[in-house]
């Protein structure tokens, strides 16, 4: 039997469809400023841990659960979300999933969707759907649970997520002052060794790296772990006319002018620029809105998939 929340959500969606209104899915509203007059699907009350099996390395959680609450529950059992989700202030796990956000550990532990095992969602017909499950290995049916990561509330309302969790580890950060280009090469060379790294970045003239577990004595200065919070989420103070781009590159990619920070072992840059500085650049100020360029075959596929889940366009494409 559907619970009250699911029942009400289904009714809200069906009602909106029949009255041709659009809905915006909202968690704790930590990322997207809400526009006036828009009707929302509120997920913040849909919160709490549904089940948690530390020894199976799986947690199932309602989508409106705050990252801080989830991480605290995991930490009690010495576990964590290994994709290091950025917290914009009471951010929810559902919103993090919808925006596919991963922190500095990405090159070493993987992206958010790597840890997604299953989802429950409600599509644009008000119909409950379940994909994946609670198993680490599961190849039955198309992997809709992982596909939906990054859909930004434009295709379905995610109500529940099952995630793989990992042991909590003690981490230490080291740093060294050096030129950027040298640091990028060095961090990639280090990532090719068995040094147990969980972060590599370049910020304000210094190369930072983070290590966990047993490791040999380092030829660098130990420094605070706080730099990873500065970079995750990276929120520099900008002038009103400045455009901040998130640029994803191959690890040892060449330098880009006006780079403010380099994270993820050189795979991610934060760059001030008027135009897109490279392929895979995202204008950060508008990242949280879904986008469609309706020309290439991939955009056609994305539009087609939206139609599969939301045939009446009830979910807002901001």
């Amino acid at each position, binding site marked *: 039997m559907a619970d009250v929340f699911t029942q009400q959500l289904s009714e809200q969606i069906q009602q909106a469809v029949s009255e041709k209104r659009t809905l915006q899915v909202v968690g704790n509203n930590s990322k997207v400023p809400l526009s006036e007059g828009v009707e929302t699907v509120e997920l913040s009350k849909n919160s709490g841990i549904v089940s948690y*099996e*530390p*020894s*199976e*390395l799986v947690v199932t959680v309602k989508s409106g659960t705050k990252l801080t609450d989830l991480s605290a529950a995991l930490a009690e*059992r*010495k576990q964590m979300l290994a994709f290091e989700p950025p917290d914009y202030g009471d951010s929810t796990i559902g919103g993090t999933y919808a925006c*596919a956000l991963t922190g500095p550990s990405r090159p070493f532990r*993987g992206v958010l969707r*790597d840890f997604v095992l299953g989802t429950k969602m409600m599509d644009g*017909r008000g*119909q*409950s*759907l*379940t*994909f994946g*499950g*609670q*198993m*680490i*290995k*599961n*190849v*039955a*049916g*198309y*992997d*809709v649970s*992982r*596909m*939906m*990561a*990054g*859909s930004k509330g434009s*295709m379905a309302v995610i109500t529940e997520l099952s995630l793989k969790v990992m*042991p*909590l580890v003690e981490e230490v950060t080291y740093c060294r002052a050096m030129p950027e280009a040298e640091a990028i*090469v060095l961090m*990639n*060379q280090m*990532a*090719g*060794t*068995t*040094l147990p790294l969980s972060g590599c970045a370049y910020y304000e003239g210094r190369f930072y790296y983070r290590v966990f*577990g*047993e490791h040999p004595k380092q030829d660098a200065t130990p420094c605070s772990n706080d730099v990873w919070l500065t970079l995750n989420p990276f929120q520099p103070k900008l002038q009103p006319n400045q455009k901040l781009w998130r640029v*994803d590159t*191959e*690890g040892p990619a060449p330098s880009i002018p006006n780079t403010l920070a380099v994270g993820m072992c050189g795979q991610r840059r934060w760059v001030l620029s008027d135009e897109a500085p490279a392929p*895979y650049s*995202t204008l950060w100020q508008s990242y949280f809105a879904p*986008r469609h360029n309706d020309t290439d075959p*991939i955009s056609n*596929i*994305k539009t*087609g*998939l939206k*139609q*599969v889940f939301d045939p009446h366009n009830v979910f807002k494409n901001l």
Partner: protein
Amino acid sequence: MSVIQQLIKALPQDRVIFDTEQCSPYECDGLSAYREKPMAVVLPANVEEVKTALRICKEHQVPVITRGSGTGLAGGALPLADGIVLGLSKMNQILHVDPLARTAVLQPGVRNISVTQAVEPYGLYYAPDPSSQVACSIGGNVAENSGGVHCLKYGLTVHNVLSITVINMNGDILVLDEKDDGVDLLALLNGSEGLLGVIVEVKVKLLPKPDTAQLVMAGFDSVGACADAVTTVLEQGIIPAGLEMMDKFSIMAAEEYAKVGYPLEAEALLLCEVDGSFDQVKVDTRRIADILTQSGATTITVSQNEAERIALWQGRKNAFPAVGRFSPDYYCMDGTIPRKRLAYVLQEIEKLSQKYQLEVANVFHAGDGNLHPLILYDANQPGQLEQTEKFGAEILKLCLDVGGTITGEHGVGVEKLDSMCHQFDTAELEIFHAIKQVFDDTGLLNPGKAVPTLHRCAEVGQMHVHNNQLPFPELERF
């Protein structure tokens, strides 16, 4: 002009095979109980030839079954009598290795093991290691989202692929990259079993080769005690690289085959391997040995050197052929279950074994809950294959009942179509068909595989309908 004539005309010599003898190796994949002769086999050598073949097949409305090395265990590459097999074995070049970025760009026919061999000089390797890795192709690995024994720590194929290039029936070339914004099409294509596109290039992540690995082997006097020990290891924050369990029958068969000193009196055997830096492995090995002792292990052996470690693995790695020596045929199942239910599931499988009068041996990837029961049967005994398949389907139902799934790493193919009707409701199956339609509106890519028709589910009595209302009521049912 017929489709075969047109393919021969448009493609270089030796690319098209259609006589019965030459086609025969393509009649089945690793699920050899199912066979079909295709209309022809096309073996393109590059992307342009793939596009040409797809264009001609589309013109003639001929189904295309893409095939890598044909090692799949679920019949995903089973031909259709009126379709062609698109074999990608000629596209077997490693196009680029970037040791600093730790990536490799591969054609789809590259064999899994040869990636690791090619990057070994840089101290790197490619982590996913399906048991067929000496033969299976990287394109097939992506199509099946293949696993292996190291999945718990290093993930499945989907976790190790950075980008793929795919061609659809319209000849569009789609590059799907981990760096893409929006819905994750790369993740969707992993495990899509050749229904959504033809994979023509794969870029994979390479990992630094661990300094060392060490294996702890422990015998237990009950399956439950062994499973509990695994639970404790994971609860203590250790993620072993390999974590394998075997039941009594498998232990006996493996020992008889490999003679490596497995404890024959044990009811369950655990092989627990850690890898990484020398310091970390030393610490973890000691902790694991302590935990297993405290968990009631009746025997413990710790590998003292590389030769010993490899020797101890020999029994497990040969478990399938070892069990196979006890019977003319065996059928390998691939369900997943929560580990805490293992003792119950094995007990129920034993009951089913008695019901069907067929013996079964169990090996279990204990870290990720992937259970491989091997049902022993004799295909020459009339009706025994059918009984075996019924037994297998009941095992998969059992896996679902305890909260698991019908396939952990082998895929659905043709083999588990009926079991898909148990795992998914009508609404979800409809969504799967609609996703297929978005990528392949011709319906010509590997039709009939991976997702059962609603008609089929209705026939097996497993059509789940919510509130007596069919979704998509406008669609015709067949």
